[in-house]
C-alpha cells in the first residue's frame, strides 16, 4: 500500500540513500535492518515526511504522494515512533499524545481538556496500558514512555480513514526484555489494523516480529527475505558481509581476573534508589550488573561514577576510602564513565575528535602549562589508527562520526587519561553489529590489561557473554551473584529468576 520507488537522498553531496525501493503491504510488519549509516533512519524520515527525497517517488495505493513535512504524512496515516525518546517531558501524557493534533478538541479556539483526556485514555486502552493521562511524561519510565509514543502514533486511526503505517525506529533500544515482549504483543495485536515498519539492530527481534525483512547496506537495499525463510546468522552475514561467529563476545579471550581488588563498595545506599549494595571488582575483571529498569543498577553505576553520591556505606578505590561528590572526584581516582547517552554525556559533539580525546586529561599534551596542538593532533592520529576510528582527520567534529566511532573516541579518552576503572553504561546501545564487535574486542583488551570494568547492558546475553561475574539487582537490592568464567557461563533463565 505504501511504496517507495527509487528514493535518492544526499546530505551536503554525500549520498545517504541510493535508489531505494521498498514496499509496505497491508497488515504486515516489515523489518528493516542494516549497519549504522546504512540509511535506515534516513529512509524512515523520508517515509515520515521529515526529509524530502532528492529523487524517486512515494506512492500510496499507487498514487504519487508528496510529503512536505510530518503533518502531511500524518494526514495520510503515516505515523512514526522515534529512535530518540521523543516525548516532551514537560507536557502531560495526553498533551503528548495529541501534540500537533489539538484541532479536534478545539471549541471556539479553546482546548477541551476533558475530551482530550478521554480520547487519550481511549488510545492507551487500545494498546492495553493504564497510565494516568494527566501525569507529566517526565514521571514515566522509559517503557511507559515508549507505550505513550505508540499510542500517539495510533491516534492517526481517528483522523485517517485508511489503514495506518506505523514506523518504529529502534523502539526496543531502551527497553528491558519484559517490556519488549509487551511491545511485540501490542504490535501483533494491532497488525489487523495497521502495517508496521520495524527498525532495530537486534536481528533476533527483527526476525521475531517481522513478516518480511529488508536489509540495507551503504544506502541501498541489498536483500529482501521472508522472515521465516532466513536465520539470524545468515542475515548478519548479508548485513555486515561477514559471519556471526560463536565467539561473538570473544570468550576465548576472557582471562581470569587478577587478585587485587580495585573497587570495593560495602553496604552503599542511596535513599530511594538502592540500599546495602556490596560490590567488588578486581583488576582485569568485568563485573556485569543485571536487572530490570528501576532495579537500581543504573543508580549504582552512577554512584560509582560520582554522579550520585552514596549516602551511607563505604566505597574504597584501591583500598582508599572515598566519597565522590562529583564525577570529577571519580575521574581523579582513575574512573572513566562511558555513558549510554553518548551524544549528551559521552562527547562534546561540537568539539573535534582530538579535543574530545584529551578532554579528561590534558597533561599528555601540555608543555609548561600550554596545550601543544601538534602533540594533541599526533596523539589523536595515533588513537584513530589504533582503534580504527573512521574519520577524515582528528580535527573533525565528533557529531559527524557514526555511533561506533563516537564510542571509540570515548574509550580513547579514558585510555588517554589512564583510567584503570571503567564504567560501561550500555556501551553498545545504538551500535550496529560490526561496531559492537569492535567494542567487545576493545573491552577484552582493556580487561586483559588489568582494567577493572563495571558493565550494565541492554541484553542479558551481552552481560553474560562479556562478564567474569554477574550481579543481579531487584528493587534497589542485590539478589544474586553468578560466576561467569569462560566456557561455563550461567543460564539466562537463572538470572531472570533473580531479576523479577
Amino acid at each position, binding site marked *: 500500500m505504501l511504496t517507495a520507488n527509487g528514493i535518492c537522498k544526499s546530505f*551536503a553531496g554525500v549520498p545517504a540513500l541510493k535508489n531505494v525501493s521498498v514496499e509496505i503491504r497491508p497488515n504486515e510488519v516489515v523489518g528493516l535492518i542494516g549497519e549504522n549509516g546504512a540509511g535506515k533512519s534516513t529512509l524512515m524520515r523520508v517515509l515520515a515526511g521529515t526529509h524530502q527525497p532528492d529523487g524517486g517517488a512515494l506512492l500510496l495505493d499507487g498514487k504519487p504522494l508528496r510529503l512536505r513535512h510530518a503533518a502531511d504524512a500524518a494526514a495520510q496515516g503515516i505515523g512514526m515512533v522515534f529512535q530518540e525518546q521523543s516525548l516532551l517531558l514537560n507536557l502531560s501524557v495526553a498533551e503528548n499524545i495529541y501534540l500537533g493534533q489539538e484541532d479536534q478538541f478545539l471549541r471556539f479556539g479553546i482546548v477541551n481538556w476533558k475530551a482530550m483526556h478521554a480520547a487519550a485514555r481511549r488510545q492507551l486502552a487500545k494498546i492495553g496500558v493504564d497510565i494516568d493521562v494527566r501525569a507529566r511524561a517526565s514521571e514515566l519510565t522509559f517503557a511507559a514512555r515508549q507505550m505513550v509514543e505508540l499510542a500517539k502514533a495510533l491516534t492517526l486511526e481517528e483522523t485517517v480513514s485508511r489503514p495506518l503505517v506505523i514506523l518504529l525506529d529502534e523502539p526496543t533500544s531502551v527497553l528491558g526484555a519484559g517490556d519488549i515482549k509487551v511491545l511485540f504483543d501490542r504490535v501483533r495485536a494491532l497488525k489487523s489494523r495497521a502495517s508496521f515498519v520495524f527498525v532495530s539492530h537486534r536481528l533476533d527481534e527483527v526476525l521475531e516480529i517481522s513478516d518480511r525483512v529488508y536489509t540495507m547496506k551503504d544506502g541501498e537495499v541489498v536483500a529482501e527475505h521472508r522472515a521465516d525463510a532466513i536465520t539470524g546468522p545468515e542475515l548478519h552475514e548479508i548485513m555486515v558481509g561477514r559471519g556471526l561467529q560463536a565467539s561473538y563476545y570473544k570468550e576465548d579471550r576472557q582471562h581470569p581476573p587478577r587478585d587485587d581488588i580495585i573497587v570495593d563498595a560495602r553496604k552503599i545506599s542511596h535513599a530511594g534508589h538502592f540500599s546495602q549494595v556490596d560490590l567488588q571488582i578486581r583488576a582485569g575483571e568485568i563485573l556485569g550488573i543485571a536487572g530490570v529498569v528501576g532495579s537500581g543498577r543504573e543508580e549504582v553505576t552512577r554512584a560509582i*561514577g560520582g*554522579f550520585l553520591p552514596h549516602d551511607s556505606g563505604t566505597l574504597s578505590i584501591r583500598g582508599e576510602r572515598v566519597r565522590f561528590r*562529583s*564525577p*570529577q572526584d*571519580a*575521574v*581523579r581516582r582513575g574512573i572513566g*564513565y562511558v*555513558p549510554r*547517552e553518548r551524544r*549528551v*554525556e*559521552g*562527547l*562534546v*559533539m*561540537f*568539539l573535534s575528535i582530538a*579535543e574530545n580525546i*584529551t*578532554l*579528561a586529561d*590534558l597533561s599528555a599534551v*601540555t608543555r609548561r*602549562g*600550554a*596545550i601543544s596542538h601538534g602533540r594533541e593532533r599526533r596523539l589523536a592520529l595515533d588513537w584513530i589508527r589504533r582503534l580504527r576510528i573512521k574519520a577524515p582527520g582528528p580535527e573533525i567534529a565528533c557529531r559527524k562520526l557514526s555511533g561506533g566511532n563516537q564510542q571509540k573516541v570515548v574509550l580513547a*579518552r579514558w585510555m588517554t*587519561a589512564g583510567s584503570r576503572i571503567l564504567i560501561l553504561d550500555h556501551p553498545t546501545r545504538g551500535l550496529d553489529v560490526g561496531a559492537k564487535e569492535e567494542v567487545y574486542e576493545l573491552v577484552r583488551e582493556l580487561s586483559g590489561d588489568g582494567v577493572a570494568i563495571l558493565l550494565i547492558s541492554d541484553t542479558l546475553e551481552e552481560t553474560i557473554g562479556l562478564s567474569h561475574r554477574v550481579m543481579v539487582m531487584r528493587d534497589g537490592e542485590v539478589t544474586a551473584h553468578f560466576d561467569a568464567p569462560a566456557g561455563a557461563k550461567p543460564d539466562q533463565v537463572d538470572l531472570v529468576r533473580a531479576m523479577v
Partner: protein
Amino acid sequence: MDFRTLRSAFSLGWVNAAIPPALLLILILGIGSAAPGFLTQETLLLLLANTAVLFILAAGVTGVILVGGIDLSIQAIASLSSVILAQLVPQIGIMAFPAAILAGVVFGVLSGLVHVRLKVPSFVATLATGGVVAGIALWAADGRAITIEASGRVFTGWINGSFAGLPVVVWIAAVLGAALYLVMRYTPFGRYSLAIGAGEPAAIAAGINVDRTKIIAFAISGGLAAIAGVVLAARLSSGSPTLANQLLLPAIAAVIVGGTAITGGLGGIGRTAVGALIISIVRMGMTFIGVNIFAENVVFGAVLILAVAITIDRSKIAVIK
C-alpha cells in the same frame, strides 16, 4: 531567501571565520567612500582608541558567554572600579590600580559563586549582583562623581598618552586581547570553557571541574570590567557610580556581532575584537555620514540584526532559540 543553500555554501569552516572580518572591511570601505576624511590615519587611530574600552568589557563577557552564561554585572563593576580608583589614587597612588582591579575580580568570583553554588541562572544572578555592586558603588562614592585631582593624575596620566605611535589604551586592549586569546587557545581553562559551553553534561562526565571553570570565567569578566572601569576613570580623570552605564548592551552586542554564539561553546576573543570594531565603526560612521540623529538608534538596531544574520555560524548551533 533560501538560507539552507546559503548555509551549505558557508559550510566550509574558513569561510565562516572570514565573514566578520570581511564585513568589517566592507564597512570601513563603505563609510570611507561615503565620507571622505574617514579613511585617514588619525580617524582610524581614533577608531581604535574609542573601541578599546568596549573591547575590554566585551572580551571579559566573551569568556562567560563561551561557557554558556551571561554577565550583566559588568557595567556596575566597571563603575565601581572607577570609584575605587578615584578614591584611592590620592592616598595610595599607583597601588590603587591593583586594588580597583582586585575588587572587580572579587565581585566576578561572587557572581560566579552565586551562579554555580546557588544554581541561580547567570542572567538573573549577575543582574542581581550588578544591583548589589551598583549600590556599593553609590555608597563608596557617597553618591557623587569623584574627580581625580591633579596630584592623582600623575598616576593615571600615562593611560591617556601614546606609545610607539599608538594610544596607550589601544596597547592595553591589544595586550589583554592577546593574553586572553592565548589563554583560550593554550590553557586547559580555555579548552574546558569551550567544552562546557558546547556540551556541559559531557564536560561534567569527563571530570572537568565545571564549577571552577565557570567561576574563573566570571572572575576574568569581573577583572576585565574593572580594568575597563580603570581606563575609563583615567580617561575621564574621575570615577562615578554611573560611569560605565549604557556600556553593557554594546559590549554584549560586540561579542555576538563577532559571531560568538550566545548559547556558548563557539567563538572567541578574535571574533569579539572584530565585533567591537564593527560596533564602533557603525557608531562612528553614523556621525561621519551624518545620519539623522533621530534615526541613529533605528540604523544601529537594523545593522545589529543584519550583522548577526551575516556573521553567525548556523552550522554549529543546534537550535536557534
